């Protein structure tokens, strides 16, 4: 470089300095990470003092992982997930995780996190929209392998044409794999749920993977108030010897570990064996219920119980519904709201109890197909006389104005969204 010229500083389009230098080696013993102490889940969740902070959903997830005692995180960039997993990388650099790397693509990442989980360590990955679909073959095999790992899903559009907007239709594909699925409403949930998901997933009678989903951008890139416990405490490490299946760590006698049916016989397997294996996975999903109740305060939350009109929602549709309920109350109307925290296990009994009395039930969703409405309808069939309205629905990245929910509250579905006239006239 010519003398007198300033050193050129390369930056990426966001203005961050690009560097190819090696990361500075930090003295681990001196780091904050090394000074973290293990506390019980009960202390971390319910007893430790909390401080209110105003942070994005991605930052909330980062704060959860900081306290989750994660051993290895494997990442792959996809919008809007990338920011969170970048920040998990920073946590690794600070010593909060023992290993972290960027995989080749989602199929490889979902495979690698399965390998890590089989080794007995606490493993993490995250994805969004098309990435979830790419990894889906592997994801569906996790429950059968009884791998208690955590998948964070920052939902986005999956179908063509290309878009990166929020839309949670992808969750409909996750619902029938045998994975625990929790749907976070806001930044606070996106801090709390991952930690609780690990603890629930690793219970002996559960031993299943868990997904914590959140609606991308609406939560990941927006700020909200989050109450955080101190940074210097973390969950106990994963105790893989107290789970339902042995790890692939060669610490057990190997003779019969994998040669007998039902695991390895493929097309020679008896259908009874495979059927019982699947039944056991779903029984394990059911066995998560008491732990969801204990740690998450129930599978659902009910606002204004007993109201004639009930809204049933999950994810950020709950926040929109809360506002609609508030605006309705200003008009003197009492509207009920059921927030579904746990999509799997599904809150069958809780939903029946919360909606049995209702005259009208509406199910607002951020997706085209109305997967939540289908679940609600099939659960409540025969248990209520209420009119169940599938909608309003928005998708492709659109936000849901509270006016739209109010329209559904105060009009019949036909008045709200349909016309009697043929379109050709």
């Amino acid at each position, binding site marked *: 470089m010519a003398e007198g010229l300033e050193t050129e500083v390369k930056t990426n389009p966001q203005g961050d300095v690009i560097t190819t230098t090696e990361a500075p080696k930090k003295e681990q013993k001196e780091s904050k990470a090394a000074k973290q102490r293990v506390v019980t889940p009960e202390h971390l969740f319910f007893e430790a003092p909390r401080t209110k902070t105003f942070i994005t959903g991605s930052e909330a997830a980062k704060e959860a992982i900081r306290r989750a005692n994660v*051993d290895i995180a494997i990442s792959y960039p996809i919008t809007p997930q990338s920011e969170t997993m970048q920040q998990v990388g920073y946590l690794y650099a600070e010593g909060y995780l023992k290993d972290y790397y960027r995989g*080749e693509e989602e199929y490889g990442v979902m495979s690698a996190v399965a390998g890590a989980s089989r080794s007995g360590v606490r493993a993490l990955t995250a994805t969004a929209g098309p990435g979830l679909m790419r990894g889906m073959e*592997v994801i569906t095999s996790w429950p059968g392998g009884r791998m208690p790992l955590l998948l964070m899903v920052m939902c986005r559009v999956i179908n063509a044409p290309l878009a990166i907007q929020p839309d949670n239709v992808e969750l409909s594909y996750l619902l029938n794999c045998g994975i625990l699925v929790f749907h976070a409403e806001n930044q606070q949930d996106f801090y709390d749920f991952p930690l609780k998901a690990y603890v629930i997933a690793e219970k002996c009678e559960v031993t299943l993977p868990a997904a914590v989903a959140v609606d991308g951008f609406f939560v990941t890139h927006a700020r909200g108030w989050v109450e955080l416990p101190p940074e210097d405490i973390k969950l106990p490490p994963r105790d893989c010897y107290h789970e339902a299946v042995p790890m692939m760590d060669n*610490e057990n006698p190997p003779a019969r570990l994998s040669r007998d049916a039902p695991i*390895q016989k493929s097309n020679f397997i008896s259908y009874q064996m495979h059927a019982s294996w699947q039944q056991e996975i779903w029984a394990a999903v059911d066995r998560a219920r008491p732990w969801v109740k204990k740690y998450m305060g129930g599978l659902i939350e009910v606002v204004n119980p007993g109201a004639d009109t009930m809204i049933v929602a999950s994810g950020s549709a709950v926040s929109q519904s809360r506002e609609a309920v508030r605006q309705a109350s200003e008009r003197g109307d009492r509207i009920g709201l059921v927030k579904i925290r746990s999509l799997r296990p599904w809150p069958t009994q809780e939903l029946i109890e919360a909606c049995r009395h209702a005259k009208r039930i509406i199910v607002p969703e951020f997706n085209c197909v109305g997967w939540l409405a289908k679940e609600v309808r099939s659960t409540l069939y025969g248990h209520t006389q209420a009119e169940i309205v599938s909608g309003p629905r928005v998708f492709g990245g659109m936000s849901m104005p509270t006016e739209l929910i109010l329209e559904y509250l105060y009009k019949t579905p036909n008045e709200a969204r349909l016309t009697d006239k043929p379109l050709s006239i």
Partner: protein
Amino acid sequence: MSLETLKISPGFESYMPKEYVDLVERGPYGREVKVSEMGTFKEILEEHPMCAGCAMTLFIRTALIGLPAPEHTVILGTAGCGRLALSQASIPFIYGNYGDTNGVASGLKRGLGIRFPNQQKDVVVMAGDGGLSDIGFSCVMHSWFRKEKFTTVMLDNEVYGNTGGQESGMTNKGVVLKMAPHGKKFEKMDMIGLAKTAGVAYIARLAPTNPTRIANTIRKAVLIAREVGPTYVQAYTSCNIEYAIPTPKVMDDARAVEKDRYGFMEIISDEAKAYLERIEQEKKAKAVAGPKA
């Protein structure tokens, strides 16, 4: 795995299955096994459902003898003939999704490293040509680029044997197979060349004609993967069914193919060479010093 864990509790000897007793008394754990000992203990591989005369089975049996520490080894496979035999071995085996072996192995190896920092746990992928060069290609290449410390063994029968004989990327050009009715249109993939490009620390190509060589090659590959980086062994393991090789002629075919285009070849990095020399010297020094008093 603690060898103490493997031992039978006093009083239970007469109730344990015969294979288990054989394993404990004569098995390959905690000692170096020679090829000449094959068959002296019952269950490193038994009752496999492979076709009569399958060269792949011979290769797998011999390769398992070569493992330096089977009591600390996990094998991964994918859909294909090989896993039918591998899953019968007395070594933990992971059978995942199509093509995911090297992805799973990456996470597994790293996880085991976290849990057992003072105990080498060997991870070996043993999968077919379709599983590694076609559907698993991305995971294989990236595990090599990332320098993941495990061994990849390709059971190259140059065909999709388990699904009924379709062409694979490793099939030779011009061969007529199902899904290649006019003959395969492109050359056999150069996985050895790709491994070189990716900087794999130890690369070997061989046919199943020399059992001692198979065991030694696998042993070297697994040892080098512990310390230096990824290793790759590509083995010709003919499919006598799809290539219509008469059962008594399988080894004749192996020898002919070896002579023609599959001769033994080793590519070893300087670092790997130095590492092997070091452990050989340590072994000799230990032998001279004798057992500790």
